[in-house]
């Protein structure tokens, strides 16, 4: 015979264990059946972090353009991140994220060998890759992480694939060699001219269009303001343009509607109807205002994080700043 003890005591105990430190994710995860090992991590740039996560159920079925939702610990936000790379045999996926708020800083505090509380996916409809002939894939900032597998998929489908990537300065560049390996042409744009062309990705794109280069499809991913201007550039030429949206999400399965976006006058859910949409039909102003809806709360969360941060407790050298 087994007896179940008093639950409220257990919860109190768990509360004590969890006590708001980074180490907690390891503690809690060990008591749960579901855990996702952080196989490896590295700082890609000063702002961006790369995670390799053990998630065989995700790796087994995922395709370019899909995303996962991860949670650092039991008190964490559910963070949607597009899958950058994966390996079916080894059972891992990688994601790259930017440290922008408390939740992503907290995530970045995790060390190699730690556990993520949750990782669910693949979510969303994969990017529709056909042999359209000539494709230009544009990645802005962190969007480079997503542009990479999508461009590779286009190339593998037989397209002539040019890639344009844009960042503020060369310190923020990543994946350059990786893209160069398969891309027919790689154009780098920096705001300050520290690498490649000085200017925006749209300058490069417009130049290519105006030079009479044959382009059948443009795929863009990055800050919404960039995608909005890519759409503006291609619209007069009636050039098919797909944008991969990164919206606020909770469940990622169509249950909450936080990610809704107006496309061609209709409400769509980025999580289940997207994340890819016709860039010419997206209401960009609405998309941008919805993304900035929690500015004040983000500030408050950041202050709380900085006050309570315990940092890494695993005593591994070289993994943490």
């Amino acid at each position, binding site marked *: *015979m*087994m*007896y*179940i*003890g*008093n*639950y*409220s005591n257990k*919860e109190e105990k768990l509360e004590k264990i969890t006590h*708001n430190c980074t180490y907690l994710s390891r503690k809690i995860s060990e008591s*749960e*059946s*579901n855990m996702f090992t952080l196989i490896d991590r590295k700082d890609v740039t000063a702002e961006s972090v790369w995670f390799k996560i053990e998630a065989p*159920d*995700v790796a*087994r*079925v995922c395709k370019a353009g899909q995303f996962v939702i991860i*949670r650092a610990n039991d*008190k*964490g*936000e*559910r963070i949607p991140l597009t899958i950058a790379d994966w390996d079916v045999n080894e059972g891992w996926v990688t994601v790259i994220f930017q440290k922008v708020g*408390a*939740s992503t800083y*907290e995530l970045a505090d995790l060390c190699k060998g730690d556990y993520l*509380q*949750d*990782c*669910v*996916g*693949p*979510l969303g409809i994969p990017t529709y890759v056909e042999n359209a002939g000539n494709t230009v894939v544009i990645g802005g900032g962190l969007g480079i992480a997503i542009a990479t597998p999508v461009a590779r998929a286009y190339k593998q489908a037989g397209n002539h694939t040019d890639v344009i990537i844009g960042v503020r300065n060369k310190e923020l560049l990543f994946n350059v060699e990786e893209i160069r390996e398969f891309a027919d042409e790689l154009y780098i744009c920096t705001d300050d001219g520290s690498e490649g062309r000085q200017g925006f990705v749209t300058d490069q794109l417009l130049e290519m269009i105006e030079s009479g280069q044959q382009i059948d499809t443009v795929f863009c991913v990055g800050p919404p303001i960039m995608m909005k201007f890519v759409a503006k550039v291609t619209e007069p030429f009636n050039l098919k343009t797909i944008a991969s949206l990164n919206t606020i999400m*909770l*469940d990622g*399965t*169509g*249950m*909450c*509607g*936080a990610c*809704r*976006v*107006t496309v061609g006058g209709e*409400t769509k859910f980025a999580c*289940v109807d997207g994340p890819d949409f016709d860039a010419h039909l997206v*209401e960009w*102003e*609405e998309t941008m*205002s*919805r993304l*900035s*809806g*929690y500015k004040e*709360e*983000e500030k*408050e*969360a950041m*202050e*709380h*994080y900085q006050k309570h941060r315990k940092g890494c407790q695993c005593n591994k050298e070289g993994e943490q700043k």
Partner: protein
Amino acid sequence: MTAQRKPRPQLIRTKLSMPCQEPSDRIQNFDEVPYGYNEAEAVFEAQRCLTCKNQPCVSGCPVEVPIRDFISLVKERNFLEAAALIKTKNSLPAVTGRVCPQESQCEAKCVMGRRHQPVAIGNLERFVADYAREHGEEIPELPKSTGKTVAIVGAGPAGLTCAGDLALMGHKVTIYEALHSPGGVLIYGIPEFRLPKGIVKYEIDFLKKIGVEIKLNFLVGSNKTVDELLDEFDAVFVGSGAGAPRFLNIPGINLVNVYSANEYLTRVNLLKGYKFPEYKTPVKRGKIVVIIGAGNVAMDSARTAKRLGAEHSIIVYRRSKKECPARQEEVHHADEEDIEFRFLTNPIRVIGDEQGKVKAVECLQYELGEPDETGRAKPIPIPGSEHLVECEIVIIAVGNDPNPTIPRTTPDLEVSRWGTIVTERNTGKTSKDRVYAGGDIATGAATVIAAMGAGKIAAKDIHKQIMGIEDEEIVEPS
């Protein structure tokens, strides 16, 4: 000990109400509103039961809890036995004791209710389940493993009930849940002050102790399809719920700070946004919050908004109070908490400021006309009655559609034009062999207990099918 024959106690006409937190206190916290009976109160209320021979109350219960018999055990103060008896039929008694609409089910059939007030069956069920939880209950002895396996899609009320019953019949059950916590609507939808999450967790832990395995963060339809599950399991039960929120087709519906009730409640309940920033998911707090709709979910949203500091939490509903789909008790609690009701009012537009944030809802006034096809008086707009209701947050609580994931990814599953999976009512069988469904995914949005009833019916038939049993031989779970 043999039961002593006592003189029948004096007939008490009214049910014993549970003590509650004062409205002025409770709107400042998320603790549960009613405190529940103590032992003496439970025995007192139990003694009102007439112990009818034909047990009409049981016929009012979708899962056929042996109500008369458990109440008799309460009279004898055999609380743990009473709990064990309930659990033979109902795997989540602490939940149903709190959220069932007893007034239209068991208590509606209570003989006492014909002349007086019915026995407070829900309150007693809740007491017994809470008592068992606090005093340590025995795990029932499990039958020998049958070696059969069943996959359940979705850890909501239907799936959990189906899983519990199948486990008690000796089958190996695995539940797949897309979210990071099991419980479905019990966890993400119903607020802490109505159903404490610790209680849900306890009831689910009980299922784990009887051998049910729960795999979280697993989306059937993406990670594996129903067809793939059929390769691994002897049967599949789909209880994926009605999780797709409806929005109104009016301008401004996608402005910042317009929430679906699902999103608002998920932020607060599942992700504990009310403890932000300790918990990292934010939820907007506003002085004036408008809730569209008047069902239980609308009441939950309005009462949650109040607890998050809203000075005015306003329910806007196009019909009158009489037609409110919410339970009377919920409306009553909302009333006590100063939730404002604007009946016969319907929004036609949400208006935003220059940053795209909500600043008002434009509404039309309605009057009641002739009854419509639902038998309720049809609301008719009054021309020229446009007016603005200023607010910072709008919550849309006008219902949910069935979750489309399983129908979309299971091509040969028959689906109705409303998106529900077509099932045989008395077995839960779908058009696909070895696939069963129940709960909101089969009926459209309904109640927790109806979903549990469907899970139970399906469990019986799954047992029959995978064991190759004919109708007469069916063994009840015990």
